[in-house]
């Protein structure tokens, strides 16, 4: 059985089941509140939810039982008395070291927990980075949306911020350097500063070959083979109907395999031609092929946001899950070859994680 944790505009939903026999909603929490991100930490079994109340601001809550009581984490705030307030939580990711987790938020901030998510601390080096006053927010704000640990090496971490690009640390977050060579923002003049306004939409790493990374950019799909220092275009003339989109998933078993969900660029942002299709590469981005058997294929204009696509398992057992802002959640237990509907008529889906 697979558990799918879905963050929506109106609360968190837990689905349990499998793609062949279907899913049922087994828990709902934070009714009426936007849940931007939610994940179950496989080490502790604890579920975390990043909730941004329109009234009371962004918080992280955690529980061992999503149908029971939730505890509020502490420490998720910018320095007291300053000019800025934390606006929104975008992502929560288990780290490499035991009891370590990371959380990303707006305005382009990273928090670390060393106690299993009960307390969090702002990463000061990123917060005080000397270039910060030149960082530009994307349409969703200055969101730190991707946090990618390096398996087995807790001091190495890559993050991505829309629209401040890719950043790496190799000293546990004490210092940060950019990794944007090769990215081409088609939406700014060629003579503009090439590292300003880099709108990365989603980033992930191939765990068996950690220097291999894939990126969905704001117009562009890229691959890196040097740990995210430089990037090669794998979205042009490779079979994608559009190189615009938000989410991205990598098959942990195969560094050459990745999945994207193209959307019409740029102002439309719905599935092209009214057909919902996931695109798969098995050759590191040299070519992409549609995978849509069982997905809506007529008059279906869906939007899938950057945190609303996830996987469980790998290789032959790879399961894929994604949710749309129109309230559907789709499931595949054969690496995208066939799909079923896991949920209909949920509130707009912001995030999906599966375990």
């Amino acid at each position, binding site marked *: 059985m697979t558990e799918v944790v879905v963050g929506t505009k109106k609360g968190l939903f837990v689905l349990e089941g499998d793609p062949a026999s279907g899913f049922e909603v087994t828990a709902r929490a934070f009714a009426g509140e936007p849940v931007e991100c939610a994940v179950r930490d496989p080490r502790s079994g604890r579920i975390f939810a990043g909730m941004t109340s329109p*009234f009371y601001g962004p918080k992280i809550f955690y529980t061992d039982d999503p149908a029971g009581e939730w505890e509020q984490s502490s420490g998720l705030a910018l320095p007291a008395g300053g*000019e800025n307030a934390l606006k929104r939580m975008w992502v929560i990711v288990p780290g490499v070291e035991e009891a370590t987790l990371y959380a990303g938020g707006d305005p382009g901030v990273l928090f670390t927990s060393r106690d299993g998510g009960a307390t969090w601390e702002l990463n000061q080096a990123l917060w005080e980075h000397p270039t910060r006053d030149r960082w530009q927010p994307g349409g969703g704000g200055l969101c730190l949306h991707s946090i990618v640990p390096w398996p087995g090496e807790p001091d190495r971490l890559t993050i991505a911020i829309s629209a401040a690009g890719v950043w790496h640390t190799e000293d546990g977050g004490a210092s940060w350097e950019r990794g944007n060579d090769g990215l081409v923002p088609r939406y700014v003049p060629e003579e503009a500063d090439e590292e300003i306004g880099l709108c990365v939409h989603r980033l992930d790493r191939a765990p068996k070959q950690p220097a291999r990374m894939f990126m969905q950019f704001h117009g562009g799909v890229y691959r890196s083979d040097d740990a995210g220092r430089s990037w090669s275009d794998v979205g042009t003339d490779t079979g994608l109907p559009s190189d615009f989109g938000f989410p991205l998933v990598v098959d942990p078993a195969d560094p050459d395999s990745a999945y994207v969900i193209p959307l019409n660029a740029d102002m439309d942002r719905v599935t092209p031609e009214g057909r919902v299709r996931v695109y798969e590469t098995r050759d590191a981005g040299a070519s992409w092929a549609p995978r849509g058997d069982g997905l809506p294929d007529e008059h279906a204009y869906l939007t899938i946001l950057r945190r609303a696509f996830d996987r469980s398992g790998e290789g032959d057992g790879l399961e894929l899950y994604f949710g749309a802002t129109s309230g559907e959640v789709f499931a595949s237990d054969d690496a995208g070859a066939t799909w079923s509907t896991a949920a209909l008529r949920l509130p707009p889906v912001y995030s999906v994680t599966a375990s």
Partner: protein
Amino acid sequence: MKQAGGKAEHALGGATVAEVLRALAAEHPAVEGWILDERGRLREHVNVFVNGEQAEEETAVAERDRVEVIPAISGG
């Protein structure tokens, strides 16, 4: 409000709205960050009234004044 011990009314000291709300957070630490943000400002969609008049952080509060905290009518 659950974070304020589940009580709707509290007797608190303070010469301004901000001081009264900080006193509430001192008495109930779970309130920290819910009404005032880390800048010390009222959250955008929270309204505060002193004796029925809409107030801001620095609005003066006297003994026996009534300070009401009410979420704004907003959302979607």
